[in-house]
C-alpha cells in the first residue's frame, strides 16, 4: 500500500462514484489506467469468445446426431455473438475494432488459455460445456455488476445465453455416462483432461495475481480468483458424483470445518507455459483465425463495393 501515489481530485471523485455503485459510461471521466485495464480485460474476453469457437467448430461436422449438430451450431454462433458484444464494449473505450482484431491476428493479444487444448473426442463437447462454460459463468456473473456500463450490459446478455451452453454440455456428459462402458470411459477421459485447465480459468492465486487489488477497488472485479475457483469446485463435485465420474484429484475432500471442498495443488507452470504460447494448440488456433480472416476478405470487399454502388445510385 505504501507505493500508492495520492489520488488527484478527479480520481477521488471517480473513486467515489465507483464506491457509490454509479456506473461509469464511455463519455465520463476515467483514470487512464482504468481505461487501459478495461481495454485489456474486455478485449481478452472478446478474443476468448472468438477463439473459443474453434475447439468446438472441430466437432460440428462430426456431431453424433442432427439434434446435437444443431445445438452445437447454435452454441458456436452464440460465441461469435458474445465476441461481438464485447468488441463493441472495447470500442466505447476509444480503440477501433480493426485495431483490436489486428492485435489478435498478429499474436499480440491474449485469450483464455483453455482454448489452446485440443478436442480429441465427442465427450470433449460435453466437458467444455459443463466445465469450461461452467467456470466462465462463475467468473462472468459478478461482471454483470461491474463499474463500467457497456461491459456490465454486454455481460448480462452473455450470462443469459451461457446457461444454455453449460446445460447442453452437462446433458452430453449425462448421456455418455449412462451409455456403454466405452462411452463412460470417454466421458471420464474428457473430465480427466479438462478438470485442471478449468480450475486454471479463474486465474492465478490471489497472492500471485498482478491486477487483482486495483481491479477490485475499481469494481471491475468483485471476487478474488481463489473465491471464484472454490465456488466452481463446490458446485461441480456433486455434479460429477451424479454422473458417476471421478474428478482426477486424489486430494479432493469435503472439509466440514470450512464448509468447502479442499483440492490439490494446481500446476501453475503448465498454466504459464500455455499462456506463453507453448500449449498444444496455440499456433493452430491463431493460424485458423488468420486463415478465416484472409479468406473472408473478398466478402468484406464485396459488401463494401455493393454499399458504395448503391450509395452512388441514390446520389445520382
Amino acid at each position, binding site marked *: 500500500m505504501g507505493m500508492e501515489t495520492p489520488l488527484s481530485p478527479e480520481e477521488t471523485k471517480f473513486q467515489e462514484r465507483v464506491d457509490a455503485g454509479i456506473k461509469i459510461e464511455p463519455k465520463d471521466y476515467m483514470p487512464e489506467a482504468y481505461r487501459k485495464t478495461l481495454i485489456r480485460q474486455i478485449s481478452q474476453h472478446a478474443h476468448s469468445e472468438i477463439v473459443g469457437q474453434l475447439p468446438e467448430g472441430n466437432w460440428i461436422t462430426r456431431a453424433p446426431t442432427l439434434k446435437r449438430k444443431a445445438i452445437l451450431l447454435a452454441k458456436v454462433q452464440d460465441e461469435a455473438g458474445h465476441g461481438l458484444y464485447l468488441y*463493441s464494449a472495447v470500442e466505447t473505450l476509444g480503440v477501433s475494432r480493426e485495431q483490436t482484431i489486428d492485435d489478435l491476428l498478429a499474436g499480440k493479444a491474449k485469450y483464455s488459455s483453455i482454448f489452446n487444448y485440443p478436442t480429441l473426442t465427442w465427450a470433449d463437447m460435453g466437458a467444455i460445456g459443463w466445465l469450461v462454460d461452467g467456470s466462465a459463468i462463475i467468473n462472468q456473473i459478478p461482471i454483470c455488476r461491474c463499474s463500467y456500463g457497456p461491459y456490465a450490459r454486454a455481460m448480462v*446478455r452473455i450470462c443469459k445465453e451461457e446457461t444454455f451452453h453449460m446445460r447442453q454440455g452437462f446433458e452430453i456428459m449425462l448421456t455418455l455416462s449412462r451409455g456403454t462402458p466405452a462411452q463412460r470411459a470417454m466421458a471420464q477421459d474428457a473430465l480427466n483432461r479438462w478438470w485442471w485447465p478449468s480450475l486454471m480459468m479463474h486465474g492465478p492465486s490471489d497472492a500471485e495475481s498482478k491486477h487483482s487489488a486495483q481491479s477490485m477497488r475499481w469494481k471491475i472485479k468483485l471476487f478474488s480468483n481463489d473465491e471464484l475457483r472454490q465456488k466452481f469446485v463446490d458446485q461441480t463435485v456433486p455434479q460429477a458424483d451424479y454422473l458417476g465420474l471421478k474428478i482426477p484429484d486424489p486430494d479432493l475432500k469435503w472439509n466440514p470445518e470450512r464448509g468447502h471442498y479442499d483440492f490439490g495443488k494446481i500446476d501453475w507452470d503448465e498454466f504459464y507455459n500455455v499462456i506463453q504460447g507453448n500449449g498444444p494448440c496455440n499456433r493452430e488456433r491463431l493460424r485458423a483465425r488468420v486463415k478465416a480472416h484472409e479468406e473472408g476478405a473478398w466478402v468484406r470487399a464485396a459488401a463494401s463495393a455493393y454499399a458504395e454502388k448503391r450509395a452512388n445510385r441514390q446520389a445520382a
Partner: protein
Amino acid sequence: MNDWPLWEIFIRSQHGLAHKHVGSLHAPDAEMAVKSARDVYTRRNEGVSIWVVKSADITASSPGDKEPLFEPANNKIYRHPAFYEVPEEVKNI
C-alpha cells in the same frame, strides 16, 4: 472493414412498447446492418422490429450537463401524483 460505419441497434420486443437500444455493430450499409442485427441481437425471439441508426448521427447530451439538464425536475415533486393527499373516503381519484 475499417471503413464500415458503426450502427446503433434498437429492438422492439414482442410485448415492448418502444424500441430499446441493445448494442451496436459495424456494417457497410443500413440493409446489412439490419441483417447483422438480426443475427447478433435476435437469436432468441428478442424482437419483432429492428431500427438501425448510424452512431455518428446520434447527438447525445453531455455527462457534464447532467445538473443543468436534470436538476430542475428534482425540485418539482408536485408533478408526481404521490405529492397530493387524497382523503381515504374519496374513491376513484
